[in-house]
């Protein structure tokens, strides 16, 4: 069955360093992947979308890559700040309107 996996362990990063989060998918080939940020007690907030024919997408300090050979997307935050601490969710296209969601990775940026 179609699956999407994110590292369930929290990621601790020192402020100023680059944080890298991983999203792996199996048994399908999505046309695009999305990354969302979720803070405690809040709904997810859309960050970036990357399509299968795009290798890389950037938005300010954020960068997303999409490797269809490895079936993997990487999400990078450069010059990380404590305010970047949150849970980051990966979601991939399942159908025209449905997404498959990862469980998210909690990112903690230490000052």
């Amino acid at each position: 069955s179609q699956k999407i996996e994110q590292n369930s362990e929290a990621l601790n990063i020192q402020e100023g360093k680059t944080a890298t989060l991983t999203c792996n998918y199996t048994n399908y080939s999505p046309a695009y992947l999305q990354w969302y940020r979720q803070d405690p007690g809040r709904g997810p907030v859309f960050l970036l979308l990357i399509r299968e024919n795009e290798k890389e997408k950037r938005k300010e300090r954020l960068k997303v890559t999409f490797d269809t050979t490895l079936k993997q997307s990487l999400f990078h935050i450069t010059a990380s700040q404590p305010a970047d601490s949150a849970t980051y969710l990966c979601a991939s296209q399942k159908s025209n309107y449905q997404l498959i969601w990862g469980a998210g990775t909690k990112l903690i940026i230490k000052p």
Partner: protein
Amino acid sequence: GAGVSQSPSNKVTEKGKDVELRCDPISGHTALYWYRQSLGQGLEFLIYFQGNSAPDKSGLPSDRFSAERTGGSVSTLTIQRTQQEDSAVYLCASSQTPTEAFFGQGTRLTVV
């Protein structure tokens, strides 16, 4: 409104009671989704509404769950005869395109 609004924010109910969760989407958004999020799990798709089309109910876990969307705007998710396993955060999202969804803050449901 400015964003997706859900009510109530928190709901504690006794096992066996019915509950109604409300979602007010962003004005003009034709698509509306309900998801369920349990601790440590990914978002679980429940139901999808698009304009006047028949909703996709394929994610509803049992016939105790139902949802409606009146006038293409406000949606209500109803859970009948609640069970403890229904405890979760219920999230509503609306969108104008499939590629970006806007979420409400969620309703945390606790069945005791």
